[in-house]
């Protein structure tokens, strides 16, 4: 898993993003509702205060007329002016009679029967605008304005607003951070598991996935996978040991048979050796050799398929190919087959020299076996991107496309060619060696003939 573009593709990151979005919506709605309800409550309270004042002042007016009202207003503006109450009593044409307002307010906004305006109050000699919410009541032919200073409440609302903004901002940030950390952690754990799996795939069956012991679902999954790996390792070990002892138990009797046959063979001084070569005794010995070779090849396949590549060393495929071409060139020449190398610069890989040589030997022997006399066998080692590519091509009959996959399985041979000698294990061993080196094996058409293409991870240069 790569960071960057694919970070958004990780399920944890997506989950976090959705979570963040829903949380912001939720917190926003909640704070919005609180803000709205608080504002309503404050307004209703102001309205009640104003209503109550109106009630009381109306009673004064009813009891003692306008003189009594003026007196009460004077007293109130002296005593309670600081509490934020605003009064103005005017006659029918708007001339001020009493109250703590010096004149009828300017720049008034009407909201239903309410007026809202600003008032300059002197606080410590500095004129400060105060928002006032007021209502005008008719008392006989007089008009009475009763209002309330809203600036305290507005300050409260402003504070509430900023608290809401800060709160939701910080929450968002915190959730984003936690989400980022969490998705990183999930990605890290998934990456650790993926890396461990890669190592295991490449053959190290003793490797286990890292556990953190927390018992969470990841930990449980890890435990299950590790348990599965225990089983696989156990089975592989059993298989290898069984194979090893089977080989031992088969080879010892083979050795005895060989010994008995050897003792029956006439000494090397015997005349007429050409005639002897065809006796049943010699045929038995060569059958024995064939059985031994098949057994060795099977063992090698089993070992390569189940094991980790050992005795790895950096080596140059071009050089190895040339060595084997040189080894096989005289044999090829006896059948007038051109055996040539293609490719120039060194192609370095990390591998087991003997196994790779065995791979090349199998491919070359196959190619020579199926080539027509006078044909051409080309061995090409090249570097293509991050891969070291080894190709052996012949001009034989090739393998029909439909049969190519099956050709890599042990003991599969083309039914059309029963007369060509061989065990049917050559390509399986090649496939096993390629897999052991973390490579890929492909069969292609050489039209006519076969191209066997082995791709290996190239050594870092």
């Amino acid at each position, binding site marked *: 898993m790569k960071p960057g573009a694919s970070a958004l593709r990780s399920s944890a990151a997506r989950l976090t993003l959705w979570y963040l979005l829903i949380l912001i919506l939720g917190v926003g709605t909640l704070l919005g509702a609180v803000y709205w309800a608080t504002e309503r409550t404050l307004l209703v309270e102001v309205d009640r205060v104003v209503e109550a004042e109106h009630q009381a002042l109306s009673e004064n007016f009813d009891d003692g007329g306008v003189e009594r009202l003026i007196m009460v207003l004077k007293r109130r503006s002296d005593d309670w002016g600081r509490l934020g109450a605003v009064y103005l009593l005017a006659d029918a044409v708007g001339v001020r009679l009493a109250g703590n307002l010096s004149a009828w307010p300017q720049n008034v906004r009407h909201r239903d029967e309410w007026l809202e305006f600003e008032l300059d109050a002197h606080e410590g000699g500095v004129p400060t605008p105060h928002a006032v919410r007021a209502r005008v009541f008719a008392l006989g032919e007089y008009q009475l304005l009763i209002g309330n200073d809203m600036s305290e409440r507005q300050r409260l609302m402003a504070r509430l607003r900023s608290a809401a903004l800060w709160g939701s901002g910080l929450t968002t940030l915190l959730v984003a951070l936690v989400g980022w950390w969490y998705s990183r952690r999930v990605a890290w754990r998934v990456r650790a598991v993926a890396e461990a799996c890669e190592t295991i795939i490449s053959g190290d069956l003793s490797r286990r996935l890292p556990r953190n012991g927390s018992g969470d679902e990841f930990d449980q999954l890890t435990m299950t996978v590790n348990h599965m790996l225990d089983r696989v390792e156990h089975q592989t070990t059993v298989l290898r040991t069984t194979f*090893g002892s089977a*080989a*031992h138990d*088969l*080879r*010892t009797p*083979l*050795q*005895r*048979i*060989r*010994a*008995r046959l*050897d*003792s029956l*063979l006439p000494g*090397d001084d015997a005349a007429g*050796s050409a005639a002897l070569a065809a006796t049943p005794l010699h045929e038995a*010995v060569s059958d*024995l*050799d064939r059985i*031994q*070779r098949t057994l*060795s090849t099977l*063992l*090698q396949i089993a*070992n390569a398929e189940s*094991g980790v590549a*050992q*005795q790895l060393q950096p080596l140059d495929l071009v050089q190895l190919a040339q*060595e084997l071409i*040189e*080894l*096989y060139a*005289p*044999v090829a020449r*006896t059948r007038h087959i051109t055996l040539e190398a293609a490719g120039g610069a060194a192609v370095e890989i990390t591998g*087991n*020299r*003997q*196994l790779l*040589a*065995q791979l090349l*030997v199998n491919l070359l*022997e196959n190619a*020579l076996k199926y080539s027509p006399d006078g044909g051409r066998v080309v061995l090409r080692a090249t570097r293509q991107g991050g891969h070291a590519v080894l190709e052996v091509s012949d001009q034989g009959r090739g393998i029909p496309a439909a049969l190519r996959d099956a050709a890599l399985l042990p003991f599969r041979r083309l039914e059309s060619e029963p007369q060509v000698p061989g065990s049917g294990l050559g390509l399986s061993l090649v496939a096993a060696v390629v897999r052991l080196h973390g490579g890929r094996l492909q069969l292609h058409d050489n039209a006519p003939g076969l191209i066997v293409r082995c791709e290996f991870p190239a050594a870092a240069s």
Partner: protein
Amino acid sequence: MQPKPAEHRMQILLIEDDRETASYLVNGLRQEGYAVQHCADGRDGLFTATESFFDLLIVDRMLPHLDGLSIINLLRQKDIHTPVLILSALGTVDERVAGLQAGGDDYLIKPFAFAELLARVQALLRRNPAETRSISVVRVGDLELNLLSRRATRAGREIALTNREFKLLEFLMRRVGQVVTRTMLLESVWDLHFDPQTNLIDVHISRLRQAVDRDFDWPLLHTVRGAGYMIREPSAG
């Protein structure tokens, strides 16, 4: 196969648990003139190998009580450097390498032909300084190999050889009078450990023979039927 050295009978210890294989090897080696002692399990083998002197040990890898590689390890720890030929039913490349790394001098996979074993036994026993010494000229009869100038001459006439043919000839000449098997050649000259299915080595030898023997009066390079090849002084033939 070879005239037996009468003056000193080589002492060989065979540690092998399979009775039939053991008796076949003991008989075969005795017929070839070697003094052979046999142990059927690992502990006895180690004890015997430590108590008396042997020129060569032939050790099976899988043994009761103590396996072959452990025996070699313990012997080498005791500073006993007798050459060891390992016999094994474990025949993969990695196991061969493990065997040689443990201190074995050669490794033979079962089942093997007696001729192959004999050739390797002889090679290990006669492993003389000429094989590895840094000498500059190797001579057999009138055939001369100059290792410094990489030139081969026979009866004073220069023979044209490829690098590999030169190596092949050098390997054979350094073991003059010894049988060298095809697998030994493949292992030593090409550093490859596999059973060639074709007549791979024979073709190389016949090309070498063309170069070395064709235009001359007597052959030096001989085929030993059922075993391998040998370069021999003309007088010894």
